[in-house]
């Protein structure tokens, strides 16, 4: 069922993603060349870059002032007297806030939210519902604010989809909506499910001005609905609209600029209710960052190659997506079109298209209606471990059974190199996806009757391809990408699930961080642990508010705190961001040492050279290019971007 169905609530407000920016630069992972100024805020126009835009960030992901803006049951919008409409969405009230964590400095474009609790609270603050957000990365990052494109992260938008687990319900009897939602969850449990909710939200308009009250905050608008047993957790089983990248050089493209102005999105046809649900929440461009929707004119939806109209989403009038300033907050971009029998029949097995009134504003399904994607697409792996990645294939929104999926390594969207490195090509320790044979997987897999295919990825020790030295670890392990696509033997035709086109969703691939094997003496010595902790101290200046992690005395005084921070499950919000940066073997070594802290203080390393204060104009240009934000800088390092090789 998922969030994209009849029974759902919408919410909107602000989020805070208070990430540390020191770890945006892979070169900052080298302890031997780390300079104290890498922990300071960047200068104007990023000159000097220092520790970029938010070196003191604590990694917190917070929900701020989120209100429930509407709620729908199977019989339509709930009445104004349903108390759910005066309720709010908040984060945890009995533990620390969630954390936002990058996978790797060379794959920064799948930042995951960990340890977030989502609460629904009534007007007096009483919990009506709490649930734990299953950690998930964003997807479909794009240049959303087309009225101001070119400015980088602040123009960007992206979406998160996951499930809320471990639900605890309060007294919801006064709310017809919540009563119905709870009943659906309970019927899901009766059918063998875990009792989860499906949640999807869109983020845009992040503010990178450290003087602003909204620093590191942006807009969030989302939807919550029931999750059915057996369905994917991070994607919609439904109709998927595929965007093509614009080939125009203007405006500047930082992430992805769809040629048809509309970004990747999903729809679901509910035959029983005779409705087509569309989630345009991360598909509609805005005029300015976090601002109103850009007016593309009425959006008409067609089936049968344009022959059958399914209705329109109006841009103007009482419900106009462009004319009503609170339209987006009110529905999080989710709309539905009632379909009659003829429309249902036409839509069932033909390509759907959404078209705006202005020229070239259009997005369609693949012409064969096919779509395949990994449900969970970000993995951290210990060498020697195998991971099973589940792919879902569908055609016209229905599971596509007994069909071959093919898999290839594809590092094209990873981000090798380092942003301020003049050396070309980059030194080998900044390459990605090497050695290629450290991950092995079958070339194909066949879907079962539910359209599911499982790909087993076997791993071995990649060695230390990105280490800067024997005790200067640099970047741990290696990052890899794996892309899936349909395999078809016959020539492409309208009945094949894949459109005969080059439409490739840039972000639709599996990201793997495969750690280096890490061995220590027994017992573990301080000299083996110190480089790990020193790197942590370097990359997360927030830790200076607690202790000096590179200093043996300071560490010994804080053993309890460190055992707590490193000992908890990565899903626990109290485990510090680095816990998820650390391999299991490094973490285990740390815990062993904390239990038996032996070893002598390490001699202080020689002070790094003092950098020159004068900067060449070419370097200033490089700085300016980085001043658009961390994601923009990372995206600029992709091997292949906007269709052109670097």
């Amino acid at each position: 069922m998922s969030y994209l169905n009849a029974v759902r609530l919408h919410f909107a407000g602000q989020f805070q993603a208070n990430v540390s920016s020191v770890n945006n630069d892979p070169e900052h992972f080298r302890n031997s060349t780390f300079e104290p100024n890498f922990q300071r805020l960047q200068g104007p126009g990023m000159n000097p870059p220092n520790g970029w835009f938010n070196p003191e960030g604590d990694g917190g992901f917070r929900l701020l002032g989120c209100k429930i803006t509407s709620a729908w049951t199977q019989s339509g919008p709930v009445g104004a007297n349903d108390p759910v409409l005066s309720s709010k969405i908040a984060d945890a009230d009995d533990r620390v806030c969630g954390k936002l964590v990058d996978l790797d400095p060379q794959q920064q474009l799948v930042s995951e939210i960990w340890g977030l609790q989502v609460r629904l609270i009534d007007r007096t603050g009483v919990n009506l519902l709490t649930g734990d957000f299953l950690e998930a990365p964003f997807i479909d990052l794009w240049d959303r604010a087309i009225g101001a494109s070119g400015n980088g992260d602040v123009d960007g938008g992206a979406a998160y989809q996951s499930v809320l687990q471990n639900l605890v319900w309060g007294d919801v009897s006064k709310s017809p909506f919540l009563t119905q939602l709870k009943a659906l969850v309970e019927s899901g449990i009766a059918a063998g499910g875990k009792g989860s909710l499906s949640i999807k939200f869109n983020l845009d308009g992040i503010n990178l001005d450290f003087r602003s009250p909204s620093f590191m905050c942006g807009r969030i608008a989302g939807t919550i609905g029931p999750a059915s047993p057996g369905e994917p957790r991070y994607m919609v089983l439904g109709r998927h609209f595929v965007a093509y990248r614009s080939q125009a050089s203007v405006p500047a493209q930082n992430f992805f600029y769809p040629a048809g102005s509309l970004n990747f999105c999903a729809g679901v046809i509910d035959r029983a209710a005779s409705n087509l649900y569309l989630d345009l929440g991360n598909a509609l461009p805005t005029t300015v960052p976090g601002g109103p929707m850009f007016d593309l004119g009425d959006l008409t939806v067609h089936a049968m190659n344009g022959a059958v109209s399914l209705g329109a989403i109006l841009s103007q009038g009482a419900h106009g997506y462009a004319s009503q300033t609170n339209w987006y907050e009110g529905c999080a971009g989710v709309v539905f079109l009632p379909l009659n029998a003829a429309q249902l029949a036409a839509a069932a097995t033909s390509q759907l298209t959404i078209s705006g009134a202005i020229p070239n504003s259009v997005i369609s399904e693949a012409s064969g209606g096919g779509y395949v994607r990994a449900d969970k697409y970000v993995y951290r792996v210990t060498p020697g471990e195998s991971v099973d990645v589940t792919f879902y294939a569908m055609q016209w929104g229905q599971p596509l059974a007994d069909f071959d999926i093919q898999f290839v390594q594809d590092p094209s969207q990873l981000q090798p190199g380092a942003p301020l490195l003049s050396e070309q090509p980059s030194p080998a320790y900044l390459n990605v996806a090497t050695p290629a044979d450290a991950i092995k997987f079958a070339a194909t897999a066949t879907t079962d009757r539910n359209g599911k295919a499982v790909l087993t990825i076997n791993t071995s020790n990649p060695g230390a391809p990105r280490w800067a030295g024997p005790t200067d670890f640099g970047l741990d392990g290696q990052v890899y990408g794996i892309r899936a696509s349909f395999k078809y033997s016959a020539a492409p035709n309208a009945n094949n699930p894949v459109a005969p086109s080059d439409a490739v969703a840039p972000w639709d691939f599996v990201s793997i961080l495969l750690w280096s094997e890490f061995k220590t003496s027994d017992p573990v010595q301080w000299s083996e642990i110190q480089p790990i902790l020193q790197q942590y101290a370097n990359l997360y200046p927030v830790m200076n508010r607690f202790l000096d992690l590179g200093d043996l005395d300071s560490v010994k005084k804080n053993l309890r705190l460190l055992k707590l921070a490193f000992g908890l499950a990565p899903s626990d919000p109290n485990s510090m961001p680095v816990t998820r940066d650390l391999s299991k073997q490094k973490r285990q070594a740390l815990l062993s040492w904390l239990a038996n802290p032996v070893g002598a203080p390490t001699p202080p390393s020689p002070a790094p050279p003092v950098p020159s204060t004068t900067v060449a104009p070419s370097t200033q240009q490089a700085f300016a290019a980085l001043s658009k934000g961390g994601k923009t800088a990372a995206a600029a390092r992709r091997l292949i971007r906007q269709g052109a090789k670097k």
Partner: protein
Amino acid sequence: MILLQQSMLDGLTGDDIRIEKIREKLQAAIELEHSTVPLYLYALYSLDPAKNGEIVSIIRSVVVEEMLHMTLASNVLNAIGGSPRLDDPKFIPTYPGPLPGGVEKQLTVQLAPFSMAQLEIFLTIEEPQDPLNFKLAAAQGDGITIGDFYRHIAKAIAKLGPSIFVHGPHNQVGPDLVEESVVVTDVASAGQAITTIVEQGEGTSKTPLEIIGKGYAHYYRFMQIKKHYLLEPKGDSFAYDGPPVPFDPAGVYPVPTQTAGWSYPPGSAAAAENDTFNYTYTNLLKALDALFNGQNTAAQMNRTLGLMMSLKELAKAMMSGIPDSKRYSGPTFQYQPANLQHG
């Protein structure tokens, strides 16, 4: 020396001692112990530890023990069938204002950066009835000391005897979770818990040393800052002539002193940060409330510790000019069950 209102003893003396009254007083004790924490933390985080490290260590050590005292008072309250209540807007005093139970107008405390003047307030709060090496404090009206207050609670418990105790350990937060804590199950252990609180706060009439614990009673710890030297044993007595405790006024961040009616302009960056702080602070009170009311597990203790660390991190950022070195603010310590900034 802070004196409490005589009424704080109501129901604890005479022949008609009722258990409800003892429970009420223990709740008041928890509130009193907590009421100093925001004051001390505000001063603590206003200090640059690189310039005022000794003072930082001293204040921090006192705060840790105030948290222990809250735990001990909660253990006694639970042991006699009460339920500590921390998750309540009324639990937090208004600053500036009197300490809970304090004699009217005797002492108004306010959230202020560390200064020698603020230190005097701390000394007044922690001053024992008969401070050692000081002349006897003059009789001050009809107030009672904090020590008296606790001693009367202990006496009242002893008078009612074993029958008021819940059978078996009840919602106790023991030394496995909080160092130096006491599991209270009977009159003797209740007495031990209360003695720990009093002696850590006041010391005894014979020695500034804590009987339980690692250091001096709070008053003498703070006196070290005033005297500029650590207190050390000397012969069969003690003297403030240990290593120096220097105070560098340049090592105090320019954070506001929160006068009556203090607030940050709505919509300002300081107001936004303060909202996040207060929300986290309120969540800590909720987590402690749960810890003291049956969720006495290691996992709950970890959640509580995590929130304390988070508060420290948020307060230090606000007070030390992070992220904007032109802006210094300080948390207001107010009850705020939802983070509604921008809402």
